[in-house]
């Protein structure tokens, strides 16, 4: 079972809209305040990456149910330049030390599951899931 909705990211305001969408869904699914804030932060980070590095793209939020457990899936997709060195962007301290934000390692930590696919010149697709425990 899944149920989806999405926000196109083009301006900084769209980041806020994506956050709002994610927070609403998280709340409806029954996530607590702290987890709502974590999910929203992850969305924020992904949307901001699209806004800053890809120019435009889409954040999609899906409700998941697997083995009777509910969860939320964030999909961040863009057709930007792609990430030349994934290992580098997944490294601790690479983006955060300059105060640039949580970065992708942050998103990975905020969520339970994290997958990234990127092709140079074609774009990037990131999927992050959090389960309701």
């Amino acid at each position: 079972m899944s149920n989806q909705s999405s926000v196109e990211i083009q301006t900084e305001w769209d980041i806020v809209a994506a956050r709002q969408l994610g927070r609403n869904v998280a709340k409806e699914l029954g996530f607590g305040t702290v987890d709502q804030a974590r999910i929203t932060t992850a969305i924020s980070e992904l949307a901001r990456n699209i806004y800053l590095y890809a120019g435009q793209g889409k954040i999609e939020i899906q409700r998941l149910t697997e083995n009777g457990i509910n969860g939320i899936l964030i999909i961040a997709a863009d057709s930007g330049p792609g990430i030349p060195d994934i290992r580098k962007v997944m490294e601790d301290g690479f983006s955060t030390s300059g105060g640039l934000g949580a970065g992708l390692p942050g998103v990975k930590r905020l969520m339970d599951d994290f997958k990234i696919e990127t092709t140079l010149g074609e774009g990037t697709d990131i999927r992050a899931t959090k389960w309701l425990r």
Partner: protein
Amino acid sequence: MVQKIGSQYKEILNQYMQRQSEQNLYVGQNFSRQLISENTSPEDVISMHKAAMQELYEEMPDTVWHSFDFLIEMMINYGLALQERQSLLQRQEELRMEMDLAANVQATLLKTTMPSLDGLDIGLLSVPLRKMNGDYIYFISDENGHAGIAVADVIGKGLPAALCMSMVKFGMDSMNDSMAFPREVLSTINRIVEKSVDDSMFVSMFYGRYEAETSILTYGSAGHEPAMLYRAETGEFEELTVKGLLLGVSPMATYEEKEVELKKNDMVIMMTDGVTEGRTAEGFIDRQVINELILRKIDEPAQVMVQYVYDELVRLQNAELSDDFTLVIYKKV
């Protein structure tokens, strides 16, 4: 400075207190980022929060203010942990620089020159998992079209492996014989490794001796990942298996050798286990996958093939390699 941050905080908090909107939370969180980058401790955040609340809502019960004092006390150790992170990041940066320098030294020490041989198109890629490569390729060649290639892998990664590899290189240098056959090369290097490193370090090695005139590759292996032979005529792959113990196990080890004659568009694909032992969420990547990747670029130059195989395997493994990666293709043209 601190005062400026405090009044910014108050302003942002006040906006949120007026209207609990996502927009105001977004502004708050961006501000928290800035605070971290300026090394503002969490206890300072609580303290600013308390001060802002006191200015905005004078009439609160004392309980509220006490509760913030308690939170400040709770956050002191969190603040220390955050400062520790700062110094760990700095130390990591220093180590990274030392490792970079060491990796350069290693690269210069171990540099080898790809031979240019009549009728052979060579593609080569060796990517270390971390800074220092524990895989190693050594070439030797002469003007008469004889060339040797050693593809080696130290069991173990990182620094200890890298140190060990310099020994293999100096062993090959001291033989300095492009016409040597695999069984001689492997037993010589075996004796050096056995003598020079402790019992927990082993090296696997594939050695191939190619003669341009006859297009014959003679090969031997010391417990190394088998090379693959691609026959253009049938479009099929076969493993080049050959017996031999890992280097460093026993000074008495002897090495088998076999030969294969390459025809036009045939390929020999040499690799380390970092190529074949990748894992995806679905399990190990098997040789079938690698063969298919090669077939997709079968008409391209050897260098394009190795790069494509690497890129695709990285993609399949979600960028999480677990070993040094070395792939060499000899393509008879």
